[in-house]
């Protein structure tokens, strides 16, 4: 995982290929796009980490901010021409975990960990309110086909809750047997992992795995690509005894597209010009590009238009690595979410469809800041599907 970054990190040539998408049309590293100093690019970060490891520079809050302004979006992994490219984000996470171990992190990051540790969510909201959105949605019982893992934003954030509510309604309408964990749900830990708090991550992963096992969960459907990613790719390292116990994780767009194909969801006309944001943890992390688009294209009346940067070249909303709460990249027109909603607006679309509650919250704020309220609306795919459900 992260251990050997110190012996490899000098290999970055600071060539800057990682600053771009494939066609070089714009700057695609969100933190470099936002701050413009080379220190905030991937190469800047890797060189500064190396300097810190060699005691050529001291730790400072500025250094830590540079490190934590990375949203772990993986554009660099996609674009770096070197053989080590797949390891870049692991190197950054490795350096963060060293900073965490030494207790040297920015205050916003420390607050994020405290909140997750104390409240089970980074928003510092009460555990007893986690299922307040659910309004009668049943709890998971052994034998249910799917555990609907809602996640922190789906549970607490006003916009995330709409996304969660819509998904629950669509699943019910399609006759899927599912349940939620309610107030017993824990934070998935994806951000905690990316921010380098490996001890806390292990605790979360073990707790969740334990709970899944006790309830004999076999299929998990997640609202958030972040939860999907961490459960699919990182949980196996902790807790669950996989010799006897396995579960399969789906992102909800995979499940919905399957249901549409099987005719279990019927869709009626919903005339709109829509563009779609590929979430980093669905796209670049897990190569799920088609299903969300196929869902949108299955809805009669929807015209799907692409933003200039899409699929593996998509531009991050700026919310990754806990930044949907900490927002280290906020401020002014150059913040990634604002740049991205302008790009969405340029397509002529009236709806910006998202498959991730963190994109939903970032873009909702950005649309206000850009004064695009009456021109562009951001909606979760589950919300669009719910609106389009055929009453027949």
């Amino acid at each position, binding site marked *: 995982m992260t251990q050997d970054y110190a012996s490899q990190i000098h290999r970055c*040539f600071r060539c*800057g290929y990682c600053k771009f998408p494939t066609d070089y049309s714009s700057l695609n590293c969100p933190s470099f796009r936002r701050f413009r100093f*080379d220190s905030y690019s991937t190469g800047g970060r890797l*060189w500064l980490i*190396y*300097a810190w490891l060699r005691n050529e520079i001291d730790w400072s809050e*500025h250094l830590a901010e540079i490190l934590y302004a990375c949203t772990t979006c993986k554009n660099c992994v996609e674009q770096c*021409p070197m053989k080590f490219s797949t390891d870049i984000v692991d190197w950054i996470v490795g350096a963060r975990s060293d900073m965490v171990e030494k207790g040297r992190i920015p205050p916003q990051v420390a607050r994020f960990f405290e909140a997750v540790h104390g409240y089970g969510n980074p928003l510092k909201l009460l555990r007893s309110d986690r299922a307040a959105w659910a309004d009668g949605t049943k709890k998971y019982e052994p034998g249910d086909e799917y555990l609907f893992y809602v996640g922190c934003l789906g549970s607490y954030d006003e916009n995330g809750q709409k996304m969660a509510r819509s998904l629950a309604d669509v699943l019910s309408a399609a006759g899927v047997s599912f349940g939620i964990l309610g107030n017993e749900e824990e934070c998935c830990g994806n951000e905690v992992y990316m921010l380098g708090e490996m001890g806390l991550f292990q605790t979360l992963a073990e707790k969740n795995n334990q709970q899944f096992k006790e309830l004999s969960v076999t299929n998990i459907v997640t609202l958030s690509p972040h939860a999907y990613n961490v459960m699919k790719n990182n949980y196996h390292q902790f807790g669950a005894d996989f010799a006897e116990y396995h579960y399969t994780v789906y992102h909800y767009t995979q499940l919905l597209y399957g249901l549409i194909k099987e005719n279990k969801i019927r869709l009626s006309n919903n005339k709109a010009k829509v563009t779609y944001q590929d979430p980093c943890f669905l796209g670049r992390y897990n190569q799920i590009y088609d299903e969300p688009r196929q869902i949108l294209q299955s809805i009669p009346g929807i015209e799907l238009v692409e933003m200039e940067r899409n699929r593996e070249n998509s531009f991050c909303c700026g919310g990754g690595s806990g930044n949907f709460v900490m927002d280290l990249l906020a401020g002014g027109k150059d913040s990634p979410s604002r740049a991205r909603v302008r790009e969405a607006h340029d397509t002529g679309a009236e709806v910006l469809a998202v498959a991730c509650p963190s994109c939903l919250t970032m873009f909702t704020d950005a649309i206000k800041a850009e004064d695009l309220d009456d021109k562009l609306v951001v909606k979760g795919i589950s919300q669009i599907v719910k609106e389009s459900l055929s009453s027949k």
Partner: protein
Amino acid sequence: MSDIYATLQEIVGKDYVSNQAEERYFYGRDPGLMPPHEPDYVVMPRTTEEVQEIIRLANKEKVAVVPKGAGLSLTGLVIPQIGGIVMDMKRMEGIEVNEAGRYVIVEGGVTHAALKSHLQKNYPHLRHSIPDSPPIATIVANAVIHGQGRLTQQRGFNSDMVSGLEVVLPTGEVCRIGSCAVSSYWFSKGPPMPDLSGLFLGWFGTTGVITRLGMKLYPCKKMRDVMLYITDRAELIPDIIRKLSHTEMMEDIVVSCAPLPLRFKGVFNMLVYITGDSEEELEFKRKMAWDALREYFESRDGGFMGVSPYMKPSLLAMPSKDTTRFADVSKGGGFEYSGPIAPIEKYPQYVKKLEELASKYNLFYSSAARVIDGGHSMMFSFSYTFNRADPDTMNRAKTALDEAAEFALDEGGVIWKPNLNEQRMVMERMDPNTLKLLGKIKQLLDPNGIMNPGNWEAK
């Protein structure tokens, strides 16, 4: 000192100045082998007026100013030798194309990436000469160091394609150079008037900051292809180049050699690029290339090899990522090259030296030689990798490059984008009156010696 910081903030806004250790660390280095030296400030101006104000401040406070593009020249040209201000140009990113006149005016920080994608999107029938440096490299800096790109075989150095300049002089005045000094059109950097662009191109930012630059654009044909010619006889390369360039039909000609993969050891790969608006045009050019080299095919001294569909996209890519990948072949994150501009007839001697030095200093090598201006000269790179985590390989590579530079000069070449030591070597050999002229020009333009001090200092 803090007054300077506050004034810089007033000029460009607080988000675009730093005096923090992290920016000073990063901007005090480049990816090559020159020793680091940190700036006191890094500043990112947005407009020509802001550049002027910074230069006036620097004159008043007698602090150095080093303009910086992407810092990819590899020879330390943006390392501030006595500290001061590094002026990162990247926020000056305006692009204005004159389609009918076939030129573009770019601001001082426009990257090759940005221009390439702007043309592809808006003017697909036009192109510029793209170098193989990573795409973040800037158009202006590449012209400032007399770079070479995909059109250099046909059109000369990228600086030969410049069609006008706007410069902030070291004393703060803005000055226009070329047709744009008297007209609203940027079609010529000098002729029919005295060509003053020579006061700025090749000077590494020591005579002013270029804030806008006109660059000629050329027809972008609909199709492009690459042919691979191989021979194991270095002594034939000059004649092969002569024959190919005689056709006046090749877009670009690059000869490369490296010890790995083993099947290529001792073999010279010549990449010959052609363009056309139809398959017939391409086919005709292929035939001309074949005919030009028939003699060597018949004597079994060389021949064209098929290029697999797997290899083709990377060979046709602009820029070529393979050039950059060389930095990681020894898993050390570094390479540097000494790149003399040299007579093509010297190719065999240069290759021999390249290999000799690699073996003497136990280094991994490669070389790419690009033909310049229809065969009047070539850029020959002596490229060696080093491991950034191993000071010993860095020292060995540095020594090898120094020796390569001496050798190249002895053999009639002139060092391209020379580092400080190589500049010294060049100036030691320079005609004394030429050297004096260099010094007088510099003194006249930059009386306080604030611009990129250390470079081209004729003492």
